């Protein structure tokens, strides 16, 4: 029992630590690279987001490396969990994410419940270009990503274009 409590405490501490890594931030509007993220709701209704409309949700800043960046960068964006909640998808078991280049992956709910998944729309305060794996990129703090047993590299979608429940 004590062991279980210790694990829960460690989990809470770790989650808080990652939460601290993601600081809410107020973003001033900028000219984003044109892009669109379509969310298909539970009823099939589609909602279209541009980077700017995405930033209407609570925005966070995250400083981390990614598998393609050896030097850390500051990513700004919103939480995947917030976006899903805003579209009534927080209880779905899995989501299917498709990229502009037709790449597709499936992300189980355990991932966004286990680690914070940031949908970055800016990098280092600048519009997120495609050559920087923008304009809409899924980013996970490297520490959480490394320690998670559910988060995979395939979940780190760049040029994200569509989210739908599975």
């Amino acid at each position, binding site marked *: 029992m004590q062991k279980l409590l210790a694990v829960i405490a460690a989990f809470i501490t770790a989650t808080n630590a990652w939460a601290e890594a993601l600081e809410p931030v107020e973003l001033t509007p900028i000219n984003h690279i044109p892009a669109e993220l379509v969310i298909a709701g539970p009823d099939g209704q589609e909602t279209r987001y541009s980077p700017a409309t995405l930033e209407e949700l609570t925005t966070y800043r995250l400083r981390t490396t990614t*598998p*393609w960046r050896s030097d850390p960068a500051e990513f700004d964006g919103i939480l995947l969990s917030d976006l899903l909640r805003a579209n009534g998808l927080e209880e779905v078991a899995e989501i299917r994410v498709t990229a*502009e*280049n*037709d*790449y597709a992956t499936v992300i189980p709910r355990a991932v966004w419940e286990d680690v914070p998944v940031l949908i970055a729309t800016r990098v280092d305060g600048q519009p997120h*270009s*495609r*050559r920087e*794996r923008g304009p809409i990129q899924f980013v996970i703090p490297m520490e959480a990503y490394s320690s998670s047993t559910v988060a995979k*590299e395939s979940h780190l979608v*760049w*040029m994200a274009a569509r989210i739908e429940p599975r």
Partner: protein
Amino acid sequence: MDRISAAFLRRGVVFGCVIAIVGTCLFAGYYVQATVNQLQLTHRSFNDRQLRNGYVALSDVQRLVLIMQNANGQRRMTPEAAEDFRVAADFLYVRTDTFQRVQITGGAMETANDAIAALRHIQALADDAIATNFDDLPYLSEELTRRAQSARQALVRYLDEMRQLQDQLLARQSKAVANQRTVIWVTLFGLSVLGIAATMLLRWEVIAKRARQAAEARVNHLAFFDPLTGLPNRVQFQDRLSSALAKGRKTGLLLIDLDGFKYVNDTHGHAAGDAILCHVASAIQSASALQSGLAARLGGDEFAIILPSDDLQLLKKVSEDVIDAIRTPVFHDGEKLQVAASIGIATDMESDSDALMRAADFALYASKSDGKGRYTIYDGTLARQFLERRQMIEDLPAAITNGDLDFFLQPKVNLQTGQVFGFEALARWRRNGVIVPPKEFISVAEESSQISDIDCRLLRDATQHLARFNAENGTAFSISINFSTIHFSSTKLVQIVSDALNSSRLPPELLTIEITETAEMHDWARAKKTIEAINQMGVRVSIDDFGTGFSSLAYLRRTFADEVKIDRSLVTDIVTSDPSRFLLDAVLDIARNLELDVIVEGIETRAQVDLIRAMGAKYAQGFYFGRPMPSDEALAAALARNAGPSESIAS
């Protein structure tokens, strides 16, 4: 199994087995690990991301070429097409970057480098096209198509190598799985063998343990119980008796001895004897259980009951019940067997189990002496007798050495002539000025193993006395000496008789050794050898008390006797009883036919003399001719008798 057990007792074998098991495990582990390592090596060179990079790169290149060729076909690049081209160029850029990073992580491959270089070559052209705002579409289209062709070839070579790697990976995976399967099979087989061996060893150990426990239980049972009857044995009996007395508990002891058990054993065999013993055990067990007592078999036909009471009425009641129960006949192999029991009763004797045992034993002896099949309580009277007997045992050795042990002579008469021809020497003990008859001390001497000394002393003294008398008076009286049967189990008697004859110079034919068969005379072969040796010296052998107890016709057949002495019990009633007369006549007839001399004992009246003489008896002995008398008196009387007229008997 015993060999395996013996082998595993050796440290070397156990050590060897441990080394073999550990070695096998290490080898199997190394074998699997080596395969896995090889697999990981291959996997590092190949993974699905790299494969996907190749295909997606082809797609990205194709996207660029299509946009360019469309624009060239329309001879203008629309703004929408230009935007699509920029996005496609971005796709290719990211793809090439990803390709490069994965390639660095996964390990350098020449075909991958070629493909990446070809992609960068296209990327550079695309960037130039964007930078120049697509001003030379025919050139761009042709050049892009050419570079795309080179990139396609490079990517195909790369993908082909990746496919080969994939094949290798699959082959190595298959091999790894096969190796693992082999290892698993070998491991399962080894574990099965070990499991079976362990199970068998465990079973064997359990069986051995059970056998050990059974043997221990058996040993324990044998140590404290009689195997035949299942009753507690003497050891447990002694423990319980000592324990009860030590705790100061009221205790009554019944010693039980069977009457007639030897007869059953000899006549019906040991199986019948065993049946009797079991019957007795059951009887005393039931009787003792009713009173919360302990029944035990002390050995042979001796049993005992310890009761937690010194109430004489209760002890008597239990004794009567036991005697009645034991007397109940037993049927064995269709034959009816019956024995009786004599019991000695004693109550606690100041916490001394030995004293209690001796008292009960003495009471048992009294029961036997008083006619068997009864019980006797060790009381004040018996206690005095017991003490007297013990005193007698203590006094006997001194009596033998200092000459207090004397002998009387009783004449034996020739019925033809009426003359005394010899005597029977009978032991007498002059104790504190009183003559003690033999029946009072012979049994004591026998029980205390002093009878040999008495018999030897009597033999020596009587032969010397007779020899001297014969020499001095010119007579040839013979002398008969009774010997206890215990002498005949040893050839020492031959030397003792020889020494007596040599020292006395009595002619051997004037010495007669009288023997009485008793229950104790078991070793007939040895007894026969002793009797033969004595007989060969010229000494006569006589069977005493013929017609009673153990002396039987069968006995005559297997001994080398010169004469029989017919017991007084066959003579007592011959004057008044026809059957007695017929019986005596028959015995005399048998003895004559066996060419044995006959001496009729117990003659007390003239009528008896006339009758036995009429039957053809030649020799007689009894009060009628003379009681046992001091030797000098007896010899003087014999001289006087022989000097008188013979008609006194003949008529």
